[in-house]
């Protein structure tokens, strides 16, 4: 259970360019943060920084759990549920196999009910190569759910989804925050969660 | 360790190397000339005749080839663990020099081998290890060239260099083992007459100074290139 995530004087450089510097923000349990900005402003880089893939050029990110404060990147990564641009789906695996893989990889048992929640129950035995773009995103959402991680980092969560898909995302996000999770999302569209927003 | 970081600043390095360079150039020329002179004026070895001269172009080149890889391994460690800013540049610029000395070692080994063994190439333990070392250098340089981002290329090359450093003793051991398996005793003859020791060591010193000189020049070139690039990007030039 993460109580809060604090970014203190965070700076990021890619190559020779400084994307942002002296960035401060704080997100608490049950809250969401929308990261906005033009393309190339550093939204994805910020998410990768929080996930622990990138090391910050300056500053640090402090995660507060019960009684402990920690700024270690790898440990933070173990709390992250990641939804990036790419889907992480193998064309040769079926939907069910793909989801079970991620469930077991993240240390949980396979859970078939998740497919129903994202509307893919009937496609369980379909190889992933036959999924549409919207279905792929739904499967990625299912993967997010089975990982059972408190900190969701979402890169353009509404992309490639039709209206019902977008409603699904909004519903899942609201439920996650309602359960005390944290969401940080890079997005061009409003999240609709009564959240703060950060402009890069 | 602190000492190494005092000259980590490119500025400091440029100043220091600029001051030292004329002396190393002079010392290199002196050493190499002295070594060659002593070598050519020494009496011909009764066993190998004049061709023993190749030996003291060959042996120091071979030693330096190994030594340069060691230097690259140290730079790689400095780059990965201590994030020394010049370490990447130092490692990258040393590699072609190392490859050159290795190639020199191989060629002179072959030239020495023809009168000795009757053929240009035999698969003896030392030459074979050297051939593998040449490939290791080429792989290292290829990795640097293949990855576009300089920082990442440096880190990747550093990992490769350290893996190679661990592996090279194993390779030498296995090649020696292979040699005794297939050819019995080692072919390379043993002792060198003392009169040749002085030119050999001088040659080694000369090569070392040559390497140090060329290395510093190359590092300076890279630093100046980067400055020029920064200026051009800022629109000055």
């Amino acid at each position, binding site marked *: 259970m993460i109580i809060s995530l604090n970014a203190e004087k965070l700076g990021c450089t890619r190559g020779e360019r400084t994307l942002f510097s002296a960035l401060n923000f704080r997100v608490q349990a049950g809250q969401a943060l929308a990261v906005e900005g033009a393309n190339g402003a550093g939204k994805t880089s910020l998410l990768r920084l929080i996930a622990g893939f990138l090391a910050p050029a300056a500053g640090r990110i402090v995660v507060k759990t019960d009684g402990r404060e920690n700024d270690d990147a790898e440990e933070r990564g173990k709390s992250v549920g990641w939804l990036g641009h790419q889907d992480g789906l193998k064309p040769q695996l079926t939907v069910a196999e793909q989801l079970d893989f991620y469930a077991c990889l993240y240390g949980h048992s396979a859970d078939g009910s998740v497919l129903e929640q994202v509307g893919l129950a009937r496609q369980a035995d379909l190889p992933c190569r036959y999924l549409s773009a919207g279905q792929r995103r739904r499967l990625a959402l299912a993967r997010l759910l089975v990982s059972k991680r408190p900190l969701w980092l979402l890169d353009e969560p509404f992309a490639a989804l039709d209206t019902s898909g977008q409603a699904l995302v909004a519903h899942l996000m609201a439920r996650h925050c309602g359960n005390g999770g944290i969401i940080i999302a890079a997005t061009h569209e409003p999240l609709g969660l009564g959240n703060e927003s950060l402009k890069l | 360790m602190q000492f190494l970081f005092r000259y980590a600043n490119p500025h400091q390095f440029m100043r220091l190397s600029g001051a030292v360079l004329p002396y190393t150039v002079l010392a290199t020329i002196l050493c190499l000339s002295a070594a060659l002179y002593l070598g050519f004026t020494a009496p011909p070895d009764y066993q190998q005749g004049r061709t023993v001269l190749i030996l003291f172009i060959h042996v120091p080149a071979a030693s330096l080839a190994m030594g340069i890889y060691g230097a690259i391994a140290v730079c790689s460690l400095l780059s990965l663990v201590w994030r020394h800013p010049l370490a990447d540049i130092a490692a990258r610029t040393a590699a072609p020099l190392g490859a050159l000395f290795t190639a020199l070692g191989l060629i002179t080994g072959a030239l020495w081998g023809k009168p000795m063994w009757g053929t240009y190439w035999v698969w003896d333990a030392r030459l074979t290890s050297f051939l593998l070392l040449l490939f290791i250098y080429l792989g290292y340089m290829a*990795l640097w060239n*293949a990855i576009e981002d300089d920082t990442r290329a440096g880190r990747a090359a550093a990992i490769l260099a350290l893996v190679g450093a661990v592996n090279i003793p194993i390779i030498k051991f296995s090649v020696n083992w292979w040699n005794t398996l297939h050819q019995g005793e080692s072919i390379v003859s043993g002792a060198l007459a003392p009169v040749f020791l002085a030119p050999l060591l001088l040659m080694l010193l000369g090569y070392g100074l040559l390497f140090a000189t060329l290395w510093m020049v190359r590092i300076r070139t890279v630093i100046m290139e980067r400055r020029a690039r920064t200026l051009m990007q800022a629109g000055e030039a």
Partner: protein
Amino acid sequence: MSPFATLLVRDIRLAARSGGGAALALSFFALVATLVPLGVGADLHLLSRVAGGVLWVAAVLAALLSLDRLFQGDFEDGSLELIALSPLPLELTALAKIAAHWLSTGLPLTLLSPLLALLFNLPGPATATLFVSLLIGTPAVSAVGAIGASLTLSLKRGGLILPLIILPLLAPAVIFGAGAVALTLDGPMGIEGAGGALELLAAFAFGAVLLSPFAAAASVRLNLSN
């Protein structure tokens, strides 16, 4: 299933479902074994003498074929990030991939080798040595190969550099493996005579499998910080 086993099973499954798994490596192995006699002539005595070396080199090259995709596939479709964030440490991830590669490539090659040894007129004890040497040595090929694969995973044409990087590092395996076969062939003691060589090979393989996950994990971290 534990995270380690899950990743292992997935990678084997993927290898089996894309292009018939070991079929490519096995075909390559057999083809090289066929080409060599065409190149050096059908003198059975000569062939039996070169069998150890030829089959070892052919096995190494065949194992190389699928190495460049070891991490690249997951890197390109975003799976690698997800795997890196899982509870499984990256070093164990690398080990799982090495094990999967061996099970789907090195082991099948080893199993085919006695048949190919037949083509080279290799006598029984030497064939047994060849089999054992490949069994012990091919894990080293997968392990060292994983280092090269992780270093080149971001390169589009990394497949060309990969052999250049790892083949020199695999020289000890070829030397000890083929050397073991040669000792069995020449020595009066049959397979026992090759004992020393097989021990050296085992030491090399053990060291490689133990240490290369660390190098591979470091390279993966490096490439994820893109």
